[in-house]
């Protein structure tokens, strides 16, 4: 057992997979010599050399196109898109090419690749460097979507993503990079598509993802302490595949469910999950399904404004209390 930051977990996860499999290569902007602009990939160039760890031009379409072409022909590339906001400059390669090729070719083409990216707000970077866009990916058939909330999960889910035969978009919460957590020694491999109940609670259910998981847990503690409400907290971990079974089981127990999303309000993963529950979980519902999200606005840069925009522990607590009788 070691204490690692979420940031350190990234390099350990990539190294674990590159040591295991020579066909795993890693490319992106400033990922090698500089060790990444978030310093999350430090040491990889030194260990694996410039043949396997490649610094690229500022050409996201070329970076992901190269990853796709390499994945079609025997490699298992890991590509970095520095900030997930930049998916917008290479969305065609992601949504029209990578996501659709296996299907269009009637299964001829496998694309075992992972695209990892720093996602979300909290660093006062403003509207073009702070977006949570995991829902952009969730809306496109053919992409698996993963977003870990802890260093241990990051390593285990990343390893599973690299070993998965399908393309995986791996969203790292940039606000969690400095956060420490217990990490078991040795190889860690998790399974994709499984949510985790990170807190048991029989009164209400709170479903969260990535950066919102610590906030949901803090809110649950506060609800228990000050309001006598025992909230179960589900860490979704994966959006595609979506672990509906785990969520339905919690809902069956509590009858009340809240989602906590970092992305702007419309068409987020919360909307999808709530819609699934409004159909398959209807008979379990004791009250409205409620989404707690960032308002449907671009993120402001000023610290005070950004803090007010993102879902806070206080807002989660208040919303749950207001809606629980």
């Amino acid at each position, binding site marked *: 057992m070691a204490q690692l930051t979420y940031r350190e977990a990234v390099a350990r996860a990539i190294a674990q997979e590159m040591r295991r499999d020579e066909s795993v*290569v890693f490319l992106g902007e400033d990922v090698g010599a500089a060790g990444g602009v978030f310093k999350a990939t430090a040491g990889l160039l030194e260990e694996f050399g410039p*043949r396997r760890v*490649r610094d*690229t*031009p500022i*050409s*996201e*379409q*070329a*970076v*992901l*196109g*190269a*990853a*796709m*072409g*390499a*994945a*079609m*022909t*025997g*490699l298992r*590339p890991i590509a970095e898109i520095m900030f997930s906001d930049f998916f917008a400059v290479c969305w*065609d*390669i992601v949504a*029209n*090419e990578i996501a659709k*090729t*296996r*299907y*269009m*070719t*009637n*299964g*001829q*083409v*496998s694309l075992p690749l992972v695209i990892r990216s720093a996602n979300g707000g909290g660093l006062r970077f403003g509207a073009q460097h702070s977006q949570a866009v995991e829902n952009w990916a969730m809306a496109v*058939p*053919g992409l698996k979507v993963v977003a870990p909330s802890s260093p241990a999960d990051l390593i285990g889910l990343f390893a599973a993503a690299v070993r*998965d*035969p*399908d393309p995986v978009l791996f969203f790292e919460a940039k606000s969690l990079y400095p956060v420490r957590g217990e990490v078991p020694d040795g190889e860690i491999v998790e399974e994709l*598509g499984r949510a985790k109940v990170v807190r048991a609670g029989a009164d209400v259910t709170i479903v969260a993802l990535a950066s919102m998981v610590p906030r949901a847990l803090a809110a649950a503690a506060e609800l228990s302490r000050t309001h006598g409400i025992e909230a179960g907290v589900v860490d979704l971990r994966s959006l*595609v*595949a*979506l*672990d*509906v*079974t785990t969520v339905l089981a919690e809902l069956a127990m509590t009858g009340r469910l809240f989602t906590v999303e970092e992305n702007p309000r419309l068409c987020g993963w919360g909307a999808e999950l709530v819609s*699934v529950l409004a159909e398959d979980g209807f008979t379990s519902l004791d009250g409205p399904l409620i989404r707690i999200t960032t308002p449907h606005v671009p993120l402001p840069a000023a610290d005070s404004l950004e803090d007010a925009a993102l879902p806070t522990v206080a807002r989660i607590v208040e919303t749950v209390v207001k809606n629980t009788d």
Partner: protein
Amino acid sequence: MTTTSTENTAGTQRTRLALYRQMVRMRGLEKRAYDLFVQGLVKGTSHLSLGQEAVAAGFGVAMRADDYTFATYRGHAHTLARGVPMTPILAELMGRANGLMAGKGGSMHLTSIPHGMMGSYAIVGAHLPIAAGAAWSAQYRGTQQVAVCFFGDGATNIGAFHEALNLAAVWSLPVVFVCENNVYMEYTRTSEITAVPRPAADRAAAYGLPPVVVDGNDADRVYEAASAALDRARAGEGPSLVEALTYRHGGHSRADPAKYRPAEEVAEWLARDPLPAYRARLLAGGAAETVLAAIEAESQAEVDLATAEAKAGPLPGLELVEQDVWADGGASWRN
């Protein structure tokens, strides 16, 4: 059908007959595809390269069996050039179960991995970086394979072109970018919306590459240019950008009567049809009329058989709609 460029030099009779055979087969296949639209048997859209056969043949014959082809929606001839049989091509256009992708891809996405036909891409420019990626993989694996990427004149103005060319040059990748300059994008003359006269060749220097322009209606010249670029790539000297000057005899797609083209221009290019010219050259070079006639007859028979087989193909099973999104064969996104 594909032999390494070193075994051949342009002008050897064997190569020339291979080039002619390929052009005849491409012409025959696409004329038939056109007839099948008219009969309403091909749904959706389809983009023919009638008139551009010399480019596909010249490269197809020069490429090695394990090289990679990346084409656009205008990819029937390039698919045939890699050795893909006619039946699955026509059947795919007709949306049949015996189609190359069982009807799931359609005319714009012909793909046959076993033949090195790595896909036909319908978003302009997207496949250039993907081809660079396949070349990177070949370089990494040390296989001496080359990726050849075909695209049009209009595609030279989209961002992905620029990013792919720069990356390929910087990493010295074994990839050949081939611009089939057929004068038009869809209905607009590319010269009207491009800052330079040669949309590809005049950009080569921006990537530290030599400008290469070739007569895209002359299979021998294309074959030579292809061989040179492929050798350069295999020698580790990096990418090439080849601009082949050609013309499509018909419209952009089935929907297009191509009224926007001046009659003289069309007439001039029809006079430079790559097939009759090449046939004449072969005869002048000593080829027997009987040999050429046999090639033509064989091709016609192949087209007729493929047409019959494609027409006989059943419709794809509807279960295919929810198959092969994932490697497990399924499409499930939840448990």
